[in-house]
């Protein structure tokens, strides 16, 4: 069990690093938007021959990475919404069982299918050298599309980590400091 929990800790640490990179995309996004807006309204040319279209496309690129790098991590931080109405009155044991069942029956198949369907979608984009629909936009659209694979793989990893923790919780072997990230604190 200890070694399994070590795996879980390693996954959480990896997700944390991914999420950190994703999260700073939020600040970058704010800066890019402001830069685009101010130069456009002031009529100042942009540096490096960038166009407004490129900047606006990079805005949803940044937002996409802000999403795909953080969604999995958010599960390990218990940031995803749950319907608490009944759950509040359940014992910890039942909560762990729901978590195990949910991860095995819903989360893992979902993330597997998502990643598996996204793969050919990304490959097609890569081999065809797909670029933005607008002439002055960004190239290499496959990089953005590969975000879908990242999204589902990270969700799957988060699921595996939470599965290990929940099983440990059922066996009564989950350290207290990991309990809040598994079934949430009592709020």
């Amino acid at each position, binding site marked *: 069990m200890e070694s399994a929990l070590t795996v879980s800790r390693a996954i959480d640490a990896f997700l944390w690093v991914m999420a950190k990179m994703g999260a700073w995309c939020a600040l970058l996004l704010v800066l890019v938007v402001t830069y685009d807006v101010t130069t456009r309204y002031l009529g100042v040319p942009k540096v490096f021959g960038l166009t407004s279209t490129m900047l606006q496309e990079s805005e949803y690129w940044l937002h996409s990475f802000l999403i795909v790098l953080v969604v999995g991590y958010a599960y390990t931080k218990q940031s995803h919404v749950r319907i608490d109405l009944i759950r509040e009155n359940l014992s910890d044991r039942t909560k762990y069982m729901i978590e195990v069942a949910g991860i095995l029956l819903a989360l893992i198949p*979902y993330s597997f299918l998502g990643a598996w369907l996204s793969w050919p*979608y990304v490959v097609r984009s890569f081999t065809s050298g797909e670029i933005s629909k607008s002439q002055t936009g960004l190239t290499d659209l496959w990089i953005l599309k590969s975000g879908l694979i990242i999204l589902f793989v990270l969700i799957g990893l988060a699921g595996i980590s939470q599965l290990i923790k929940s099983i440990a919780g059922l066996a009564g072997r989950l350290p207290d400091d990991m309990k809040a990230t598994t079934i949430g604190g009592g709020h």
Partner: protein
Amino acid sequence: MGIIELLPLLMFVALAFLLFSGFPVAWVLGGVGLGFGLIGIVADELNFIQFSTLPSRIFGGVMENLILTAIPMFVFMGTMLEKSGVARDLLNCLQILMRRVPGGLALSVTIMGTILAATTGIIGASVIMMSLLALPIMVERKYDHALATGTIAASGTLGILIPPSIMLVIMADLLSRSVGNLFVAAVFPGLILATLYMGYIVIRCWINPSLAPPISEALGPQTRGGIAVMILRSFVPPVILIGMVLGSILGGVATPTEAAGVGALGAILLGFFNLVILPSMGVKDFTLKGPDASTQSATVIATSLWRKLVQFERTVSGVVDSTAQTNAMIFGLFVGATFFSYIFRALGGDDLVISTVEAMGLGPWGLLFLLLGLVFVLGFFFDWIEITLIVLPVFAPIIAQLDFGDHVSRFDVVYWFAILIAINLQTSFLTPPFGFALFYLKAVAPPEVKIQQIYRGIIPFVILQLFGLTLVILFPEIALWLPRVLLN
């Protein structure tokens, strides 16, 4: 009708049932979508090839979408204003300015809720923030608990309606309408509700002043000059910021995404001003009593510039982290809901809904009230995110077909409908015994505040909400006039 035709309906039954397990909604949506996809394949209703367009749906709907990019930036702006103390200072300032008005503390909460509507856009988070900031001082001043909590719950939820509301961004996206137009349409309904709240508070406290003892005259700056400085530092900057963000959208100068970005940067600058520049100049933070009213003290001023910069960096970093997680929560759900709705459609869900609705023969008004009633009940259990993402796509084709004749023009129906849903949802979040804004409030309220008092205090506000809703139903122009004048 065979079981196969009913599969989309069973999908919703299964979803509703499984959601109550308390497993994260995003994964339940994905799991139910997947499960019914498999059933569809086994029953020969679906072909596996149909699954392969799912990635492009998610890509087009969630990733390659410049409109939704506004959401993390609005969340960023609100969180930054909150964590840098700008929101707290604004509330303190309003409380001091209104100390001679009947119900001044309660009024300042409503005004703050109106100005900082964007604070987070997530009901739980806004109600909690407002409760932590305002409730302790109201309890300390012996405010009537029912009035205090009613005001906080109603003002804290007003943010889903008043722009820049992220709920309206998502609604506009799902209904394929302009975010800017929907924002403008929400202005008057939002202001009417805020005015109704304030009218109620003033009249109630004027008749019975013991409900709302004013804060002590000894608090805050005493001289005219002191008050002017307070207004300049705590009131003017956030109001100008929000005014610019909204003004540029309402005036059609900037898209919501552009306004959100500039607004977020403005919030960072305000935070820098509040956390680094003002303390460096030796300006002391004015504080009101109450456990959460004072976080910054003379010790902050005494620290070195370097320490202040570190403190600022930590704040920004915390805002970035919390924005990323809120955004991930919203878009994790978005992806799950895309998955779910795709399978729902592929199984013939749209046709089932439309044929069922036609079979009921309700007419547009009947349908409108049916949908409002349905959303109202759903609001007892789910936040607006689940409701808009799951239910709205199902009913979108019907809504676009509604014909109210001369009452509302065909083009405007969708905007009007979205505003009605927003007011309706807010009412639902406030209605006892389920209204979950009330639970969030209870969770962070001082122990002497009882849930019965919260229930009693919210009822007048629920009545005001229903009155506001009726007004907008009877007079659609309340929502539709301003967009026509400003934007067309």
